[in-house]
């Protein structure tokens, strides 16, 4: 049975686990390298990317995580998770990203907490209905590499969701809403990987 892990170092991992369990997906929390062996895909949740970046190194998760990803294990990053997946974080050395997705991101790109917002966002890949996107001290994608597909952008053109092969990343938090379409989309990616396609 396909098992989706959620990186449980810090952040709203419990919210992701709840969404997956309600969908009937088998889940597990990933805190140590040994936990990583048992999962077919991994979600990096929202949280503080500085904290997650540090804790990834304390228990030496970084290299096994990057290795599994390069072997094709699907990853889904939301907000801080998007920052962690990026190739580069602009003007910021407090986060060391995993460098898996060919994007440049800017942290806290909209300002401070009082600038956090909700917006109905078109995400054509998951259907015609707009997605109820929650942006909390959110990052944006400011540069997109050739192999990266833009999945959603704000009205002003700023990119807030991308896919590159087996990696999916959003600047917003699908786990805070009742809309499970992006989680379903990711679980399909994980199942496809499990079938060896």
């Amino acid at each position, binding site marked *: 049975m396909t098992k989706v892990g959620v990186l*449980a*170092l*810090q*952040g*709203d*991992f*419990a*919210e992701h686990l709840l969404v997956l369990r309600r969908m009937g997906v088998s889940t597990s929390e990933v*805190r*140590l390298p040994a936990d990583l062996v048992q999962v077919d895909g991994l979600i990096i949740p*929202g*949280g*503080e990317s*500085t*904290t997650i970046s*540090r*804790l990834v190194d*304390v*228990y030496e998760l970084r290299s096994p995580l990057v290795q599994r990803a390069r072997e094709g294990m699907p990853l889904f990053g939301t*907000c*801080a998770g998007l920052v962690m997946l990026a190739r580069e974080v602009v003007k*910021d050395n*407090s986060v060391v990203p995993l460098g898996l997705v060919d994007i440049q991101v800017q*942290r*806290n790109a909209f*300002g*401070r*907490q*009082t*600038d*956090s*917002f*909700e*917006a109905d966002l078109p995400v054509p890949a998951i259907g015609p209905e707009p997605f109820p996107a*929650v*942006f*909390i*001290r959110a990052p944006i994608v400011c540069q997109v590499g050739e192999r990266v597909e833009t999945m959603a952008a704000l009205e002003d053109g700023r990119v807030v969701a991308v896919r590159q092969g087996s990696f999916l990343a959003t600047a917003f*938090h699908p786990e*805070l809403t009742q809309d499970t379409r992006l989680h379903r989309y990711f679980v399909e990616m994980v199942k496809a990987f499990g079938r060896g396609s």
Partner: protein
Amino acid sequence: METATWRVKAGLAQMLKGGVIMDVVTPEHAKIAEEAGACAVMALERVPADIRAAGGVARMADPARIVSIMETVTIPVMAKCRIGHFVEAQVLEAIGVDYIDESEVLTPADESHHIWKHTFKVPFVCGCRDLGEALRRVAEGAAMIRTKGEAGTGNIVEAVRHMRAVMDEIRKVQGMPEEELVAEAKALGAPLELVQQVKELGRLPVVNFAAGGVATPADAALMMQLGADGVFVGSGIFKSSDPEARARAVVQATTHYNNPAAIAEASKGLGEPMPGLDVRSLKPQELLATRGW
């Protein structure tokens, strides 16, 4: 596009879960906290142990101090206002802090009323000693709750008491049939609809951190195992002999709170923790947790 919605306010607290929020009084402290892996900092004029020692009236910190800390770190910055002092809260919102703690650690400005927090764009966290107090604060608009504990003592006993009180009452509400919730809401002094939500969710409707007396990695893990979503550490970091090492250790113990070997590893060679106070030796007027209602 809509800002300051309930989902956005409560949502930031959800992003802080599993993390440690550290009290800091200077930009240098804030940098140490960020590098240690703190998920947010609380910008203060003095840490609670020093507020306790100084006596007198404790007020909101100098906005210049808070701004200098906001300019130093990229993680969220919280700041405290006095209970009921809605103008201090307006000032903190105006300078752009990410969260306001309407805190019993400062001297209350109003002994009857807390701030009506719904009208603010910035979210609030408030202290509690039991479920009724937690839900009264949520009713006023608090988007995050923490235990009061007894700040500035380095003694975990009150935080444990308050967390157990909240969790016990949640378990009790969960087991009640619908018709008993009305009387329970009356007994708790909390709105019925919030009591109904607690029954449905099996937890508080907002994120619930532990605070007030956390001094060691094991203290942090204890509060997590008792059901806290994360931990505030006040005086415990910067009143210890090696703040950098202790800050890192508390962060690790909070993440790996269910892993005794990891807590043991994090606890090694940290030097002296902050000096502690026996809460039973404090006079009633020296207790901070009894401020607010």
